[in-house]
């Protein structure tokens, strides 16, 4: 009844057709990433994760044994189901990664807005101080922002 690996009985393999389709998609995907970088539409630092995903896809297509091993470990009989689960998890991770990046950038934008507002108020103060003098060109303290990192 209870099997250590549920997949033992009748394993469903990837057909060679799926493998070819997957390999072609993976190659096109990686070419697209390269092209986006080349056109400055995607920054390198955000491309690594996508490139790794593409390579993983290609590896899965080239060595189906790898995928079957993972399916076995997950206790999934159908290799395709294992594949979908992995991809789903990967996408979940990516989405989370982007939320983290977004939060950081939101904090940076807020600080930027605050810095600008403060500079304007300072300029106004300097102007009032000089009795509507020449300009509000007051040297601002070099406040290195602690938002980075």
């Amino acid at each position: 009844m209870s099997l250590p690996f549920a997949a033992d009985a009748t394993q469903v393999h990837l057909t060679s057709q799926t493998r070819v389709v997957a390999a072609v998609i993976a190659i096109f995907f990686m070419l697209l990433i390269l092209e986006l970088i080349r056109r400055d539409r995607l920054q390198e630092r955000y491309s690594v994760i996508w490139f790794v995903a593409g390579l993983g896809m290609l590896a899965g297509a080239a060595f189906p044994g790898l995928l079957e091993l993972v399916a076995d470990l997950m206790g999934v009989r159908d290799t395709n189901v294992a594949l979908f689960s992995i991809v789903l998890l990967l996408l979940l991770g990516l989405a989370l990664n982007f939320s983290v990046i977004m939060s950081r950038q939101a904090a940076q934008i807020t600080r930027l807005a605050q810095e600008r507002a403060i500079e304007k108020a300072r300029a106004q103060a300097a102007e009032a101080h000089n009795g509507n003098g020449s300009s509000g060109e007051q040297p601002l303290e070099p406040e290195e922002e602690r938002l980075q990192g």
Partner: protein
Amino acid sequence: MRTLVFIPAWNEEASVAAVIADVRRELPRTDILVVDDGSIDATTARARECGVLVATLPFNQGLGAALQTGYLYALREGYDFCAHLDADGQHPPAEVARLLAEVEADRADLVIGSRYRDPDAEASADDYRPTLSRRIGTGVFRFFLTLATRQRFTDTTSGMRAANRRVMSLFSENYSPDFAEIESLQLAVREGLRVEEVPVRMLERAGGSSFLTPLRSAFFIFKGVVVLLVGQFRPRRHAEAER
């Protein structure tokens, strides 16, 4: 000793000038800064006409970010104390003076003006009266914040506060843009700062309307509880070491 009073304002062109005039009358020796949180009306223009400093955020960032701008300005410009009050006329500046007196006497680092005033003080017609959803929210926040900080707070969302430089340096670094009031109290207590509540008189708002509808209130309360829960597990920062 220099003191800054800052007034966060978002689309408050109707009331901001009157509030500034009140602050000038009641707190003549303080500098005034209006933080315009990306208003689409003439808030900045009204405030400038009054001759006070105005820090205008280029787009609406939320109350927390506006307040943080004020704390940051006070810190950078070397003010010893700062206080803030709402721009809608609910907060009488005379009461702000009482909050400032507490921090100036070094009895507390952060002083909150509580609208739930002394029960024995006599009521007047224009006093603040909370709505039902406001009362529920207040009860929930009060309970959880007291649980989290082991200190009794009655008015957790009060926007009338006075602070010293310790608080400025903490809040200019860490101030949640989404859930400013409650989280900041929790943070200050966790960092070992002395937080005190002083009962004050608050008025019904002079202009504008509250943003709280029942559904929003429910969401607001839910969010607040989650924020408090998460806040309990945040790493402590530096303020404690400074004392």
